[in-house]
């Protein structure tokens, strides 16, 4: 009996030293599948970061998995732990609530957890949180619109899908508008972050309001539809359309000085690359990485557009 225990102990010791000798750490990345422009950007940047991290740190392996719904993502992170034996998990949760428990289970098994963009309902679980700045995006947009219009005029607003993200952006934008009583927000309607709805809603706004000075479309996909609707109606009263997120076609328009698209507000999908790099740093160096990182939502204008233009990204 003693002998057997002895053997087991030696074996276990041997295995740990072996693990240490290899010192191969595995980072699992779990993100939503590319089902619209922004998530397509996330997938692209996750794979870019994988290539770059694996090249820079030969002892690190990065596994990227995409999920098409929260249930699939929950199963996937279990598999990442049991099958792929990950040491760290970088996750952009499909939805906050249904993934909180699965991520907590993973955390209990000693995995280093990095949460991106959408926070879990229990922030105590994560070691690192890399967040996009949704209120900041709304605020920066509002400030730009107000400044560009000199605090005077009429605007319409196209919103995304009724979610926390949309509410945060919209509320922050309207907060800025309150400080500029010269600007009237004629109406705000949902355009579901998609081109066709952007077109439809804008057509109806154009029918309804004879004078519109500017449009806050919040998102570049919506803005594609908005621009087409304005073009079709031959309306010249609209001075500019402000989108958001940083789609490459729009960054290009800003770069080229399109008068209708003088600026864009970034909500960068490559924040997932930031998160993967933070996880890599945790293993590669002794630097302190724990904490929350808020990726800013900067204003993109003609002067700085070229540094945000990534022609190879699908978004």
């Amino acid at each position, binding site marked *: 009996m003693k002998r057997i225990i002895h053997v087991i102990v030696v074996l276990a010791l041997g295995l740990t030293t072996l693990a240490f000798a290899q010192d191969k750490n595995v980072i699992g990345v779990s993100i939503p599948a590319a089902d619209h422009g922004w998530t397509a*950007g996330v997938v692209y940047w996750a794979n870019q970061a994988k290539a770059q991290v694996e090249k820079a740190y030969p002892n690190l392996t990065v596994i990227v998995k995409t999920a098409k719904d929260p249930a699939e993502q929950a199963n996937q992170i279990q598999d990442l732990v049991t099958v792929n034996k990950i040491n760290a998990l970088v996750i952009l949760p499909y939805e906050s609530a249904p993934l909180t428990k699965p991520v907590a289970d993973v955390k209990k098994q000693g995995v280093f957890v990095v949460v991106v963009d959408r926070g879990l309902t229990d922030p105590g679980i994560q070691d690192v949180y890399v967040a996009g700045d949704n209120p900041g995006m709304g605020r920066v947009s509002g400030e730009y619109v107000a400044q560009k219009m000199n605090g005077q005029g009429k605007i319409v607003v196209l919103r995304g899908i009724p979610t926390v993200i949309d509410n945060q952006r919209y509320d922050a934008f309207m907060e800025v508008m309150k400080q500029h009583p010269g600007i009237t927000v004629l109406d705000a309607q949902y355009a579901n972050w998609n081109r066709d709805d952007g077109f439809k809603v804008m057509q109806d706004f154009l029918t309804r309001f004879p004078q519109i000075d500017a449009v806050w479309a919040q998102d570049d996909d919506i803005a594609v539809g908005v621009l087409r609707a304005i073009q079709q109606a031959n309306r010249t009263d609209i001075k500019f359309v402000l989108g958001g997120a940083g789609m490459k076609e729009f960054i290009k328009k800003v770069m080229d000085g399109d008068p209708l698209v003088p600026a864009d507000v970034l909500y960068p999908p490559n924040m997932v690359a930031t998160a993967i790099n933070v996880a890599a740093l945790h293993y590669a160096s002794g630097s302190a990485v724990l904490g929350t990182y808020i990726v800013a939502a900067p204003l993109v204008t003609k002067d700085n557009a070229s540094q945000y233009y990534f022609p190879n990204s699908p978004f």
Partner: protein
Amino acid sequence: MQPESTAHTSRPRRPRLRLGGLGPLIGLAAVVALATILNPSFLTLGNIFNVLTRTSFIGVIAVGGTFVIIAGGIDLSVGSMAALLAGSMILFMNALSPTFGSGWLTIALGVVFVVVLGGLFGLGHGLAITKGRIEPFIVTLGTLGIFRSVLTYLSEGGAITLKLDVSDVYSHVYYGSLLGVPIPIWVFLAMAALGGLLLNRTAYGRHVQAIGSNEQVARFAALRVDREKILTYVIQGVCVAVATILYVPRLGSASPSTGLLWELEAIAAVIIGGTALKGGFGTVSGTVVGAILLSTIGNVLNLTSIISVYLNAAVQGVVIILVAFLQRGRRTQ
């Protein structure tokens, strides 16, 4: 003696039938009246053209859907199919444009390509349903997922965009007018007229209705049930292709959100228009009214802000149920 007596018994039914058939029209008239009171700009020619032009996609698809549903089938894949057809058509035209130029020749080839592809998709559905004997709900639910994910794969989740020079020429198809009326409205009317003729004035139309009301009897009557059913799916595929031909020039791009939930809108248009979901009976004109009604509700909600935007879907739901209530007489048929 026999025929006379049947003619007799059917006579008293008529008034109720007619009222039922007018249900969607009454609903549309009510929505139009209400909209005009709420916002007079509703009845401007520009807005009416906007609504009808945007109805043309769903409307043309629903004309095809009328055949499928009357024959007792269902096609859930039309939205995804439209997305994949749009993406394929754009890639095809982009590939052709260096050789054939960026003018009408490339576009004409693109149109032929997409109609053939749509027809083939429909043929695939029809064969799987009749020869493979799989429920249409399952076949088209399967392809709903397949079509959309293939498009997502082709676009890497982003957008597939038509080359700008081709797009400039092609955009006339959506934005251009003929005799003052936008082209998509003409196409919609032509497809509806064709569909109506096919359904009511040809042997094929009668066969479709016969199959839908009782497939077994239709078989005994020596109708070529499988062939006629396959044809309804081919018609549906071609209709989706025509809708795609109108859709692509609007934004010049296709993305994974293209055609999202169009299948439900198209089926709703058909059913609101008085076609029985279980098959056997229906009209193309009803479908046209149903499709216009659906997009009018959305338009009215955008033109007014008396109801919270959070409740838009609820308003749509209430109107749909009310209209169905108005034409419920049909079901006793």
